[in-house]
């Protein structure tokens, strides 16, 4: 618990850590159901409608643009998290519509040290193998969604990772996020197992179960 408090302070700053704690206290025990996904990068289908997004590797110079996105999302405390994630060596992509930064995506590979914190959700036995990546937090500003924009962004991400020699992408999607589930399923992401995770303040737990089972072990 102390270690997590320290990490929150380091990554979010005092204001951000207090805001997170207050938000978590208000939320009570939160249960989220998710599905682990796997995509083979030798099966990338190009969108029929060519998209207009320009995708670049995330770098420190993108932080001001990402900060604007975080404010428009109503999560300004995420700025610190983005800064520390880049400092830790986590990788990312940013999407531009013209000159405007409108989206992002995080990813790590097997050499990431420390591992990406979101990977904890995937289960106790989960580890990225060499040649695989773990991707998370695909996001596009709401006014830039539709018309296949998310499909275009994900397609360009997949191509970029494949061109670097990676073979597979792991990740997870919230069970109730219908738009995201549709996007991933139509892009060939296969459901692998179910996940139930719960959190309250500093406490969190997660269970995994094979597909088709109602609960999670």
């Amino acid at each position, binding site marked *: 618990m102390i270690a997590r408090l320290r990490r929150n302070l380091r990554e979010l700053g005092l204001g951000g850590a207090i805001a997170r704690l207050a938000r978590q206290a208000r939320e009570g025990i939160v249960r989220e159901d998710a599905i682990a996904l796997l995509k083979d990068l030798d099966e990338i289908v190009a969108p029929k409608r060519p998209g207009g997004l320009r995708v670049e590797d995330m770098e420190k110079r993108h932080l001001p643009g990402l900060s604007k996105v975080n404010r428009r999302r109503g999560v300004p405390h995420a700025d610190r998290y983005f800064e520390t994630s880049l400092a830790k060596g986590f990788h990312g992509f940013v999407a531009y519509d013209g000159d405007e930064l409108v989206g992002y995506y995080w990813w790590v590979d097997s050499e990431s040290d420390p591992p990406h914190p979101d990977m904890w959700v995937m289960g106790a036995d989960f580890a990225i193998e060499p040649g695989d990546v773990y991707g998370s937090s695909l996001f596009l500003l709401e006014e830039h969604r539709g018309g296949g924009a*998310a499909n275009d962004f994900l397609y360009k991400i997949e191509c970029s990772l494949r061109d670097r020699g990676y073979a597979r992408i792991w990740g997870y999607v919230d*069970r109730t996020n*219908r738009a995201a589930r549709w996007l991933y399923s139509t892009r060939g992401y296969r459901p692998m197992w179910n996940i139930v995770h719960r959190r309250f303040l500093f406490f969190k737990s997660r269970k995994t179960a094979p597909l088709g089972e109602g609960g999670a072990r």
Partner: protein
Amino acid sequence: MSVAADVEKFIVEEIALGTRVESIGHDEDLLAQEVIDSLGITELVGFLESSYGIEVGDDDLLPENFRSVNSVVAFVASKKG
């Protein structure tokens, strides 16, 4: 109108807006043609639930249930029992 005609009309007029799709064959592959994107699927599900009184679960959003107008019709029929 039949369910198939209703679904086709909704897709053409609400989801495929701006894609120059004016009609859809009822066996046409909507996924291959990218007629239904990730926002469109949520609109279509809302339409099906309100029009036919069915409840579409999160796990029902499988490509095979929405691959064509006829797939959607079969899905609605299965939900109505």
